[in-house]
């Protein structure tokens, strides 16, 4: 046998490769079974980037289903609440080019929360059933109200309301929510040479 291998180097090389392939194949096969990961880790990562408003504007019943769809190759620009920042984060994660938000699914808007005009509420519980995050409090024939801190602003409660008493109002920006803006780079045309300016530079 050994003599045969020595005398036929090509055959022995092929044999060696075959054996190596079989051995690694067995290891990989074993690993695939014993270290099998339940669920798709990429779905969780995508889901972590999605804003969890559960608004369904992407056409899927919630953020998780959309995350699964993205993992299966759906477009990443169907999430208006996530906006441009969300698309960029997804593009970074999936290593694809960022694309503009698909207008078909809505436009990026300021953060809003639902308010129930409580005097008009008839207590039908329809909005409670529609709320994906249980942010509406109430009982049959009792007035309902939105827990503002829990509301994701998905506006799914607006449509089912038979008396149309739910408003989507932008979140107030008081002095606490206020923040500095980035300086406007275009306001000071700094990229022209000083001598090209119309006016001399202020001392």
């Amino acid at each position: 046998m050994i003599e045969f291998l020595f005398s036929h180097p090509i055959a022995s090389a092929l044999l060696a490769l075959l054996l190596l392939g079989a051995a690694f194949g067995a290891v990989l096969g074993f690993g695939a079974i014993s270290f099998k990961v339940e669920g798709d880790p990429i779905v969780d990562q995508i889901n972590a980037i999605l804003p969890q408003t559960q608004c369904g504007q992407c056409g899927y019943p919630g953020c998780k289903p959309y995350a699964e769809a993205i993992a299966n190759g759906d477009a990443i620009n169907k999430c208006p609440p996530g906006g441009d920042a969300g698309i960029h984060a997804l593009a970074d994660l999936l290593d694809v080019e960022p694309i503009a938000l698909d207008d078909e699914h809505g436009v990026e808007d300021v953060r809003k929360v639902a308010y129930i005009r409580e005097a008009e509420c008839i207590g039908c519980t329809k909005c409670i059933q529609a709320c994906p995050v249980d942010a509406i409090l109430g009982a049959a024939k009792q007035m309902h109200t939105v827990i503002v801190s829990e509301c994701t602003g998905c506006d799914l409660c607006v449509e089912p309301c038979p008396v149309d008493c739910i408003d989507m109002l932008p979140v107030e920006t008081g002095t606490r929510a206020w923040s500095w803006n980035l300086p406007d780079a275009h306001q000071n045309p700094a990229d022209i040479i000083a001598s090209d300016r119309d006016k001399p530079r202020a001392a």
Partner: protein
Amino acid sequence: MLTKILQTLSPATAISPVQPERYSPSIMRMRKIWDIHGGIHPPENKTQSLGERIRQAGIPAQLILPLSQHIGAAAVPIVKVGDQILKGQCIARAEGLVSVPVHAPSSGCVVAIENRPIPHPSGLDDLCIVIDTDGHDRWRERNPVENFASCDKQTLLGIIRDAGIAGMGGAGFPTGFKLNVRDAREIDTLVLNGTECEPYITSDHALMRERAEEIAEGIAILAQLLQPREILLGVEDNKLDVVAGLQSALQAHDFNALSQRDCIVEVVTFPTKYPSGGEKQLIEILTGKQVPSGRLPADLGIVCQNLGTAVAIADAVLRDIPLISRITTITGEAVDRPCNLEVLLGTPVEYLLQQCGFRAGENNRLVMGGPMMGFALLDTRVPVIKTSNCILAPTEAELPKPPAAQPCIRCGFCAEACPASLLPQQLYWFAQGKELEKLEQHNIADCIECGACSYVCPSNIPLVQYYRAAKAEIRERDRDMQQAEYAKQRFDARQERLQRLEQEKQAARKARQAKAAARSKQSGDADPKAAAVAAALARVEAKKVEAKKAQAANSAEDDPVQRALLKRKAQQQAEAADPQAALQQKVDSAKARLEKAETRLADAQAENSEHLAAFEAAVQKGREKLAAAEQALAQPKEKSTDQPASN
């Protein structure tokens, strides 16, 4: 390099112009001081406002008190519009732990609780309590503490909290919360910040010059509260005139007794440099210890307080004066008489400017705070609040508009100037590209927004504004992520609940189906059994009725109510055992009663009784009841047609 010079040159009190010999050795000790990284030396411009002593600003016609003059939750009003209030009365209570109450700075009447312009970089309005003063300045009843040395920690902290004291150096952190150090954490060093490193501002300088006794009282109370091993009063060497006064004022207190151990009390002077007044910077200068990123000085056993805060504490504890006034510097070339005023909180800025001869025409913008860290006021009606240490009214020549920003040339001056040893130009690039993770990796959270980098930048880039915006963005992102996580949890919980309910519904449906199937299987032989049971029950009932009749006939004293109750009970039991049989029984008993009533009616007719009508009605009722019972029996049969009639 500078550190070395410092070490050789400046053993704290050695450069003090006064060399008093009567001071105890602990105060005369030579002390080593350290240098901080970076820093700048902008023109100080402090002498203008130091010409006069502190003046009282007086009582304006209207006081505007924002509910949010500090860091933390806004206070909650406890007065109504129209209420008459006294000086020092609490008008808004603290909301939660990190909050402070607000007190009325003078007596008068609450005329409004509404949104008014407040001193805030946003220029936005916020909720304020507006008081029309009556000019009498009548105090509420005051109960000062007789001997603070006998007070325990919680009592003193309670007084400080109730007095509405927030850090008066500029940030406005609730002092009661800051001083409430956990018992396990021993405080070694109490640092008093008399640095006042920012140009123009002299309110602390004036305080040290004229109110050294009150400062010493405040320090004594802090010593009693924290029991430190050493108390260091940091003063920049441009204020050497106050050192002697402070030292002699400190002599009046026995700090060893107050802190219950050997306590070193020292007024430490060090070279003037901006921003050595930052909390972490001052701690490094005085102790050589660097407070790690993301940690508090208390973690190193150090507590730092502003001198103005110490005075406020002394007023609160010893005189029961809550925080209702402060010293504010009014300065700049657009005012005729720059000075320090003792101002009631809520006094409109325009009222103060009038007193100092403000020339509005020459002023280009109004700044609250200093030229480095202050912000522009858009409205002169805004009030002075707990953190307003300076109002700067410069002329255009004095503080010109910043020239247009030019591209960064990567000169690195900003990195040399940064007192927190950060890399400002890197942060600038990342802030432009909104690379928040990179910003965090480069410790943007440690930026104290002192403005030293912007000051040295040859391209005039407003660097600090980039950092402020980036910090806000990071905060916003963190908040959004937290909210998203929370929403996800709630969504998942809801999905789980819906799934569970659906499963329960399915299970119940299956159980019902199985039951029905079992019943239909048994239906063949169930019929005679049920009939037998019903017959047996009917017999038992008949027997009972017989027995009771006999009993009733025999014993007249038997209570009919009791009987009825017993009967009802028996019926209920039977009904519970087998509803079908019970219905059948009802029919039977109704039939029996009807027959009885009919015989009675016949008897009555035969006798021609006077109760004929009543018997007729009884028969009628009996018929109705029988019909109802029969219907009730028939109904379930109709519903499930496969179930045979039980009789």
